[in-house]
C-alpha cells in the first residue's frame, strides 16, 4: 500500500514553494496532500483537467481509470491527450502527460471498465474518488461502491454548455441515490456524443473537482457537500444550490439499507456503461 513521506524533501519545497506560503495550505497541508491517494474515474473531458491539477498540486498517488482509447474527436476537450497518442488507452495517455509534469506523483493507470466485480478492489486502495465518467450506470456503481467503502465521491458532469458539481457521501451529506433514487428513463439521457459539449465546460468543472479534492485532502472545508454548483457557460453564470441531507429512506446509505452489495448497474439503468450507445436493445 501507499506510504506517504513524513517530511518534504528539498525538490518538493522548491516545486511547491508558491503554494507552501499560503497559510491555508502550508507545510502541514502539503504533507497531507502528498499523503493522499485519489482515484479518478474517467480520463476524458473532466478527467484531464482534474488529473493535471491534482498532480501539479502534489497528491501522493493518482489512480486513473478508463476503458477507452484516445480518438481524434476527443481532442477538442480532452486536453492531456495528443494527436500522437490517438489509439492509446486514455488512462495511459493521461499518466504519460501527468508524469511529465510531476514525476513525484505515483501514477497508476487502469485500462479497464469498472464494474460490480472489480470496483471495490480498486476503490478501497484510495482515500477520495473523483467521478469524471460519462454515463448513468457507472455513476450509480461508483456511488454505491463509495458508500460501501466509506469514501467521499467528488462528482462532476458536463453537457452542451452546462456543468454540474457536487460532493457525495461526505460527512453526513447525501449520496447520489439520496438525490436520485430512481435512474432516469434511458431515452431522456443525452451523452456528449449525441448532445455535444463545449470543451472548456468540462475544463472548468474538472478544475473545480480538483479544487474540492485539494481542500478535502489538505484539511480545509469542502464547499459542495450537500450543495450543488450549476454552471451555465452561455450566460457565464454560476449558481449554488442547497441540497437535502442524507435520506433515512435511502436504499444504500439510509437507516435500513436494502442494497448491500454492488448490483448490475447496466440492467438497473437500462443503459450501457459507456457513452457510445443510448440504451440497451435487450430491454
Amino acid at each position: 500500500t501507499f506510504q506517504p513521506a513524513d517530511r518534504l524533501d528539498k525538490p518538493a519545497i522548491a516545486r511547491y514553494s508558491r503554494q507552501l506560503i499560503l497559510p491555508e495550505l502550508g507545510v502541514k497541508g502539503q504533507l497531507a496532500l502528498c499523503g493522499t491517494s485519489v482515484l479518478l474515474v474517467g480520463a476524458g473531458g473532466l478527467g484531464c483537467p482534474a488529473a493535471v491539477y491534482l498532480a501539479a498540486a502534489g497528491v501522493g498517488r493518482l489512480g486513473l481509470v478508463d476503458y477507452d482509447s484516445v480518438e481524434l474527436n476527443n481532442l477538442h476537450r480532452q486536453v492531456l491527450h495528443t494527436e500522437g497518442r490517438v489509439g492509446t488507452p486514455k488512462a495511459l495517455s493521461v499518466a504519460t502527460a501527468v508524469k511529465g509534469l510531476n514525476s513525484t506523483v505515483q501514477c497508476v493507470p487502469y485500462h479497464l471498465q469498472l464494474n460490480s466485480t472489480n470496483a471495490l478492489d480498486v476503490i478501497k486502495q484510495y482515500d477520495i474518488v473523483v467521478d469524471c465518467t460519462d454515463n448513468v450506470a457507472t455513476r450509480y456503481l461508483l456511488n454505491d461502491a463509495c458508500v460501501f467503502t466509506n469514501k467521499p465521491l467528488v462528482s462532476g458532469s458536463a453537457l452542451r454548455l452546462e456543468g454540474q458539481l457536487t460532493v457525495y457521501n461526505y460527512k453526513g451529506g447525501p449520496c447520489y441515490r439520496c438525490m436520485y433514487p430512481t435512474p432516469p428513463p434511458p431515452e431522456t439521457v443525452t451523452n456528449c456524443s449525441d448532445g455535444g459539449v463545449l470543451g472548456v465546460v468540462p475544463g472548468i468543472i474538472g478544475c473545480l473537482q480538483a479544487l474540492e479534492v485539494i481542500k478535502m485532502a489538505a484539511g480545509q472545508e469542502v464547499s459542495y457537500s450537500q450543495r450543488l454548483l450549476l454552471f451555465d457557460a452561455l450566460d457565464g453564470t454560476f449558481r449554488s444550490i442547497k441540497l437535502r441531507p442524507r435520506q433515512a429512506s435511502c436504499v444504500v446509505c439510509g437507516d435500513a439499507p436494502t442494497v448491500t452489495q454492488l448490483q448490475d448497474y447496466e440492467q438497473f439503468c437500462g443503459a450501457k456503461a459507456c457513452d457510445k450507445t443510448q440504451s440497451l436493445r435487450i430491454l
Partner: protein
Amino acid sequence: MSKVTISMANSVNISLEFSGGAELLFDMVKRHDVTLPENSQPWTIKSLLVWIRDNLLKERPELFVQGDTVRPGILVLVNDVDWELMGELEYQLEENDRIVFISTLHGG
C-alpha cells in the same frame, strides 16, 4: 342580506426555469415568467406541474412528468433550494417564487 365569501387563491406571478436539457421540451426557452390564474385551492408544485403540462409542454409530456410528479432525473429547486427541503409536491407557491427544473447531466 347575507354575504357569501368564496375563498379563492389569488393569481400568482412566478418565474419558471428549465436547464440541463429540460429546456429542450420548452422551445429551448430557459426562463418563462408566468402568471398562474386564480384558483380554488392555493397553488402547489403539484398543481403547477399539471398547469405546465397543459399550458407549456407541447409534446412528449412523459419526458417531463410521470404520474403526478417529475420524471426521475429531474431536480426541482425552489428559490435555489432543493424542493425536498421545501415540502416537495405540497409546497405552496408564493409571489415571485423562482422554480427551477434541472435535468441531471451525466456527460464528462
